[in-house]
């Protein structure tokens, strides 16, 4: 059952990812990205990382993608839809991506087979680790969010100096 779910979620996620980069309209790209995020959350559930699956849906598919759609709406990108097909950049992208895949395949081939350990990423377990072992990074993250917030407010000012 787990295996079928893995195949379903990963193939669906990769198809959505492909459509993100192939859609001409940025709105379609954003929608396929939401879909890819959902399937990624499904893969997290298959890996028994339940807390991260919920966070993935709430933060990525919720907050981040709303931000993306808001900016697309704000920019009104109708004129961007028609553009020339560039053979050079298309070929370059395919070649670089393929080279990366070949290297990863070489590494993965030599790896020993290991069985999955019974570790379950419940909210309790992740939270316990977060507030004991990773307390300092957790607090530093709040500073990062504050800095990002101040930066965004500054960047959004109309008279950007």
């Amino acid at each position, binding site marked *: 059952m787990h*295996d079928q779910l*893995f195949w379903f979620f990963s193939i669906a*996620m*990769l198809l959505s*990812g*492909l459509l*993100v*980069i192939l859609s001409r309209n*940025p709105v379609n*790209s*954003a929608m396929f*990205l939401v879909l*890819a995020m959902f399937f*990624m959350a499904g*893969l997290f559930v298959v*890996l028994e990382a339940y807390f*991260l699956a919920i*966070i993935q849906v709430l*933060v*990525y598919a919720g*907050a981040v993608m709303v*931000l*993306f759609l808001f*900016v*697309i709406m*704000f*920019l009104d*990108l109708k004129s*961007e839809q028609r*553009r020339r097909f*560039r053979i050079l*950049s*298309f070929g370059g*992208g*395919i070649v670089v*991506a393929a080279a*990366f*895949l070949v290297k*990863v395949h070489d590494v*993965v081939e030599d*790896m020993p*087979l*290991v069985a*999955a*350990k019974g*570790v379950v*990423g419940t909210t309790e377990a992740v939270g316990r*680790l*977060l507030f004991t072992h*990773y307390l300092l990074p957790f607090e530093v*993250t709040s500073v*990062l*969010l504050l800095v990002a*917030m101040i*930066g*965004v407010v500054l*960047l*959004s000012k*109309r008279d*950007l100096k």
Partner: protein
Amino acid sequence: MIPVVLQHYLVVSAVLFSLGLAGVIIRRNALVIFMSLELMLNAANLALVAFSRYNGNLHGQVFVFFIITVAAAEVAVGLAIIVALFRRRKTVNVDELTSMRL
């Protein structure tokens, strides 16, 4: 059918990362490039969660939690930069945004 092991997750993660990489290189719209970056971040997250499961501890999942937080901050700042750029130059096509000067 062969059972799913760690390697399957790593290959799926690598394919997703390659898709994001190809998107960054192929696409000319700054917003779509940004979305491809999100795909690449997600690919790294998948690899970390898979490693976490097959290593038998939760440290990888905590790391993914931090990555998601940083990605949210990054998206907010990046989109603000794109909006500021669009106000000045009236375009988000990276081919036309070749000078550092505003």
